[in-house]
């Protein structure tokens, strides 16, 4: 068991980790995901409000992890990317599906997936990964 299995940590992050609730500064209009509680542009003048992100966006850089850190060994090889969300902020995320189809510039959408198992004793964590969004927008 480690901090990675911290129940309180995942409990308090449930809105951001599972529902993609970020924040927005209504003073300057900038959106934040992961959420920030202080707007770095406006600081004390800022006014932070919750903002639900669609999670849709575009891959701006990606790599295939072939040597994993502790706890992720059984998932290799897996793709991770920096995704530019449509709301105008970037996030790191795993891309599910065929790693050979991942490319910069491709559209992605969020999916709910198992993320990580902390050994035999720890939590099984779920969260958001992304998949290639190859359907035309409706």
């Amino acid at each position, binding site marked *: 068991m480690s901090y990675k299995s911290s129940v309180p940590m995942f409990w308090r992050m449930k809105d951001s980790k599972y529902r993609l609730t970020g924040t927005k500064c209504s003073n300057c209009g900038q959106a934040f995901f992961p959420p920030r509680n202080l707007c770095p542009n406006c600081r004390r003048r800022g006014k932070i409000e919750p903002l639900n992100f669609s999670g849709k966006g575009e891959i701006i*850089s990606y*790599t295939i992890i072939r040597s*994993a*850190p502790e706890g992720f060994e059984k998932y290799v090889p897996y793709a991770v990317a920096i995704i530019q969300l449509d709301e105008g902020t970037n*996030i*790191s995320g795993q891309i599910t599906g065929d790693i050979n189809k991942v490319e910069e510039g491709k559209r992605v959408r969020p999916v709910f997936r198992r993320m990580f198992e902390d050994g035999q004793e720890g939590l099984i964590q779920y969260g958001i990964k992304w998949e290639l969004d190859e359907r035309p927008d409706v």
Partner: protein
Amino acid sequence: MKRVAVVGIGQTKFSEHWDKSLRDLSTEAGSLALQDAGIEGKEIQALFIGNMSAGRFIGQEHLSSLATDQSGLLPIPATRCEAACASSALAFRQAYHSILSGQHDIVVAAGAEKMNDIKGESASAALMGAADQEWESAIGLTFVGLYALLTKSHMKNYGTTREQLAMVSVNNHRNGALNEKAQFPAEITIEQVLKSPMIADPLRLLDCSPITDGAAVTILASEEAAKNFERPVWIAGSGQASDTLALHDRKSLTEMLATKVAAKAAYGQAGLRQGDIDIAEVHDCFSINEIFAIEDLGFCKKGEGGKFVEDGKIARGGEKPVNTTGGLKSIGHPVGATGVRQIADLVKQLRGEYGKLQVNGARTGLALNVGGSGATAAVHILRSEL
């Protein structure tokens, strides 16, 4: 501004030290530095030690007390500095500032890390403590993964090639092959780099600095105190800057803004420009980061770092020798020790004492130590004369 000099240096061999503990390595490097400075130790008034993650590597915190205790320096004040892989450049900078402030005359700046007591996967997870734990580590990113994301952006934007990246490792190993303190003192070829196992596309094993145990120590003295030492090397400039912890929050994936800001401060204080730098020790934790360094320190235009390497300009006999003693790639990267090791190597070069690795006529050297994926950068400029 007051003048401050480095008057003593010491470094253990960087290696997998199965028979030595963190305390063994720290005291060994400390003893070598005292011997080099020609003092006993009672002259030392304060100690600053850089260390990234002894708590996770060996379960030991409170290294400030441990280092002072084990070195027989009690009861002087001791402070641990942490900024991931830039920890000991920050310890050096704090030591420098403690003399500039007038508080102390002779102080120790050290760095130490013991990484091989735990298995590689655990060390990799511990290193991810330098990234954003909640949003980068949590999705299975690794440090080589973060630098792979930067590499791909650089390749896409500027046409940097896989071969140019390999040439960084080849250059550093060519130098490190002659460094008796290096973990991997052997030359490698471009073909070997390109055939080594893929770790995170497009970075391969021989693009990556190794996991290393080691310690390095410098002794700093005020101008007045430095008169009692034989071979002072002077600190001409010091700069430090920060950027977002998470890579995805950066404004650009093709430059290290913290490096640029820290370099500007250091050049400004020293009254020097990049053209005045004779040699540089830069943070090649992954091959791409040496290309970032060359560009962001201003040695060439943005995007031309790969060509700069390909043209041989960073070689020991080249226009701008970089990582003249092997870099992190060949010497090894005990994360919390690297910043002080870089400075100790510059001092040895600027004294003209590096034997086979000596860059003749080197009088001004620059050290760049980077923390995380670029969230901290520290630049120091040293000169043989001020």
